[in-house]
């Protein structure tokens, strides 16, 4: 397996996890379910952080490991950083 800058854990995922610091404004190639995919990463992505591998609409599920990790609080274009600024947790929400 060649060294990749980002990994997608499950073909259903709409996010990738950076395994080294990426970007900004670079093309990143990775494998999604065995298929090579290239995403233009717009934001700087720190090691361990996520970016969208396809466009995500406000209110859509954000998916990693093939499971929902939260909902998008705004539209997120492919290649943009996905984190607490645009992802809302659905669990343990006493404030809601």
């Amino acid at each position: 397996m060649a060294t990749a800058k980002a990994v997608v854990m499950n073909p259903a995922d709409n996010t990738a996890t950076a395994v080294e610091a990426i970007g900004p404004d670079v093309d990143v190639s990775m494998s999604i379910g065995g298929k090579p995919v290239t995403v233009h990463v717009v934001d700087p992505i720190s090691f361990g952080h996520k970016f969208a591998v396809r466009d995500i609409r406000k209110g859509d599920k954000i998916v990693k490991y093939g499971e929902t990790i939260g909902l998008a609080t705004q539209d997120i274009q492919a290649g943009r950083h996905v984190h607490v600024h645009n992802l809302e947790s659905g669990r343990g929400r006493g404030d809601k």
Partner: protein
Amino acid sequence: MKFMGYRRPDGKAGIRNHVLVIPAVICANRVARGIAEMVKGAVYVEHQNGCTQIGADLELSRHVISAHGTHPNVFSVIVVGLGCETLRAQDVVADIKKACPYKHVHLVIIQDEGGSVKATAEGARVARAMLAEASRQTREPIDVSELILGTECGGSDACSGISANPALGKTSDLLIEAGGSVILAETTELIGAEHIIAARAVSPAVARRCFEVIARCEKQATDMGVDMRGGQPTPGNIEGGLSSIEEKSLGCVYKAGTKPLQDVIDYAMPVTKKGLVWMDTPGQDIEQITGMVAGGCQIVIFTTGRGTCCGSPIAPTIKVATNSALFARMNDNIDLDAGAIVTGEATVAEVGHFIFDDMIETASGKLCKAEVLGFNDFAIHRIGPSL
């Protein structure tokens, strides 16, 4: 497959042969430490409990302290009390003697001895003899099916679910295939992944318990009227790229491997089933380790992405880094590196076997880094207030 361990007279298997000095109450911490420091080779703990506790909270503290005394990794015990506390040292001694009549247990009460200096001297006098006796015990081959492994992840990062936790999951599977037991814990860090683990439950009753303990845990957060985020995931988790408790949990659950879930048990209660068992503990690392060890686990494997140093006073606590940069940066504290999975240089299965081999070697006597460095972290989960 065998490891080299200590066979106790009641048939239980230990992997260490500690002389443990344990206070029954916070007020006896200094004397317990003084006793252990005066002799070579004793371990001690300190804690905040033992007085002005009532009901189930008091019972739980007593159980956890006594269960460290009865633990098969412990050869003999000195219990230190002040003399006027709620959790009486005499009761802890009685608990240990009842469960393990063969074990040498000594009681030191500071008020009866005439103060801390005399109590320390009395404890040290007895500890010296206990250590000499402990040194005469020898290891013998014991089947790995008698191991209970406690799994934990702390200081998680986004690689936890990619590298170290899946690898520890493989290790868990290998131990269960060999007939052993594995504890999955930290209920908070299973919120959002409960459906995955419940689907592997051996019965509808066990599956129902999975959802019940998660509901109770989540209610505790929601009852406080706040967003759990910031507490869970922690600020360090968020800095490391984890965006929600669901993401953290989905990474955490990998360390449970792929085997059926046999049982869901309460905090610090004994593990009686072979295979995978979920212990309902908080996500706080030290309370979790303490609960798993009280439940009988002889060894802990702890994955970390941000880095942690902690260790049980009586059970070897092996650290596994999720990424190689952490392994290099905190090499004094981290035993193993799963980072080769992230870079594609090793498979999850390869690293899982590597961790398994290290676990067997450590069970047979190799010291892990937390042991060499003298970590003795101990904290009992509180379920009621101090009064």
